[in-house]
């Protein structure tokens, strides 16, 4: 991911760190230090869809908020369009928010229940002096139409909408100021599975239409498999692998990435058996294991993994991984079991075919 001069980097994070807690607090004594985000560096190219993936509690949402400076980093820097934003004074930061917006995970809690949808979407327009009065109303209606809602919905309150509709409102609100960078912090994980695709497709369409750069945060690879250009995998506050989408799915190098890919539901009976699923819970970020943070759950772990912390290194063009064994481990092959069919299944299929009077091979 070494950016050559020709690529246009819209967002560049260096060594971003955020700790929570720590210190002595009377009368509770020493508070545990939570390393939510621990030295994350990444670059996002203008116009791409960049995905950040990891389990619950791996720090991906914290990272998203750090990028927008909705929370202050403990250390590190973020540059947006070449401009350092970590030290930006509040007023300038406030104006910058026009260009970088976020969609939150919870479509229910993230909309002020006392404001009409029109007021919610229109508020950023007046705050940033983009439009007011009738012009603002027109813009609000246009935004509602853009996300597939009816313009006359502007007078309603958030509670009158379903989850999917509310998330559309959230998208309209985020896009009202015509930002150049849009972060989706698990934008669909609170939605019914049946409408996730709708919202993701909407985001993709809008991205193409408005020339956005999209950062998607997700907790599984299934959601972002078809939409992202590049993917960063996070584990316990660190990026363990970062690669182009195809490269990551075809040759995942980090054992953790492999288990995430294996966790994607495969719509083929019998395929489940061949998958190696991750066991146990991630260790507490208050007491991360020494060495490689993944070694406690890694089936390949060796002695070096327990003592030395692996650095993120280039393993192929545009493919970086933080694993001591990335070079030694064979390129991962997708579950071979997809093709092999169990004897029991063959029997069932034959029975079914017999009953239906069709050749078993077609069933």
């Amino acid at each position, binding site marked *: 991911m070494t950016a050559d001069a020709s690529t246009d980097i819209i967002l560049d994070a260096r060594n971003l760190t955020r700790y929570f807690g720590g210190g002595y607090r009377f009368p509770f004594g020493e508070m545990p230090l939570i390393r939510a985000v621990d030295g994350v560096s990444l670059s996002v190219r203008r116009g791409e869809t960049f995905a950040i993936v990891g389990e619950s509690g791996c720090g991906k949402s914290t990272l998203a908020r750090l990028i927008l400076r909705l929370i202050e980093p403990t250390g590190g820097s973020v540059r947006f369009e070449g401009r350092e934003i970590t030290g930006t004074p509040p007023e300038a930061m406030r104006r910058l928010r026009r260009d970088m917006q976020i969609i939150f995970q919870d479509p229910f809690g*993230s909309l*002020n229940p*006392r404001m009409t949808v029109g007021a919610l979407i229109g508020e950023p327009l007046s705050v940033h002096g983009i439009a007011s009065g009738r012009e603002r109303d027109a813009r609000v209606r246009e935004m509602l139409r853009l996300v597939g809602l009816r313009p006359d919905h502007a007078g309603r309150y958030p509670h009158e909408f379903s989850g999917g509709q509310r998330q559309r409102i959230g998208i309209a609100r985020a896009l009202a100021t015509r930002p150049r960078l849009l972060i989706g912090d698990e934008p669909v994980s609170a939605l019914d599975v049946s409408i996730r695709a709708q919202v993701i497709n909407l985001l993709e369409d809008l991205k193409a239409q408005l020339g956005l750069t999209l950062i998607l945060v997700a907790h599984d690879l299934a959601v972002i498999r078809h939409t992202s250009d590049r993917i960063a995998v996070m584990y316990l506050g660190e990026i363990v692998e970062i690669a182009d989408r195809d490269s990551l799915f075809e040759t995942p190098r980090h054992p953790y990435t492999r288990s995430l890919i294996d966790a994607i539901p495969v719509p083929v009976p019998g395929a489940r058996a061949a998958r190696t699923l991750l066991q146990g819970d991630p260790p507490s970020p208050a007491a991360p294991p020494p060495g490689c943070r993944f070694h406690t759950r890694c089936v390949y772990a060796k002695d070096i993994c327990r003592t030395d912390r692996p650095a993120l290194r280039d393993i192929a063009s545009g493919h970086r991984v933080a694993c001591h064994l990335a070079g030694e481990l064979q390129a991962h092959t997708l579950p071979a079991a997809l093709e092999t069919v169990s004897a029991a299944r063959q029997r069932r299929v034959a029975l079914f075919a017999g009953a239906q009077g069709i050749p078993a091979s077609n069933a």
Partner: protein
Amino acid sequence: MWSLILNRILVAVPTLLLVTLFVFALQRLLPGDPLLTMAGEERDPAVLEHLRHLYGFDRPLPVQFVIWLREVAAGNFGASLRTGEPVLKLIGQTLPVTVQLATASILIAMLIGIPMGVLSAVRKGSWVDYLANIISLTGLSIPHFWLGIILILVVSVELQWLPASGYASVFDDPVRALQTTIMPAFVLGSGLAATLMRHTRSAMLEVLGLDYIRTARAKGLLPRAVILKHAFRNALVPIVTLSTLLFGQLLAGAVLTEQVFTIPGFGKLIVDAVFNRDYGVVQGVVLCTAIAFIGLNLFADVLYILTNPRMRS
């Protein structure tokens, strides 16, 4: 919403019945007979008997209660046993006094308590928060009557800035009304300000932790707009409800302060009536207070509905 109001009024009837029954029974359990003083030095049994019959005290208690209820339903609250003045007239004289004091007190409480609560929530853990906590705890801990006495000593006796006692209606003499009301109102308001501050603080902290506050910040709103427009407006509901209930308490509970500042209000009326076993007055006053309290509760509920889009149908 109209169904709620109707519903409340229907529920209010048994509540008021219970309250009056309770007060009626308690009063009659108290030792002492108001007629003894009326019967004069000799306490002639014949005179006593005559008086008892005249006031209906020779009838069984349940019958007395029902008679009282019937009269009240017809709008007749009876007269004071001591002075012979109609109960309604006494209430009409004292209620405006107490309402004026209570209004001034709640205004002072809100002016002090709400900004202090908002500030300490926004600056949680800072010296502002600690200072606000210390002030509010002090306000809660100081007895009203003591604060009143000290204020009279300092402001009236030593500095001679304000009159120590008395009353004037805002409508008759606004200047004098302000002079006589501000000290007792401050005494009552300072205690309530502490309660209001604590509630405002916790309501604000709760709202400030919600997702849509983060949304508002992400929009690029001014911090002031986030706090006032998004957080405070949503935190206002419990604050308004509490203020209304506190106001109800003030109507009935300013007894000590009214004594200290010799204000001829509701509290003074009821205390005097209880000491004199002035049955009719006590019952009338309690009934009025209960009606006011229920009315204020309903008012708070209606406000809650009006300010909450989810409750509007």
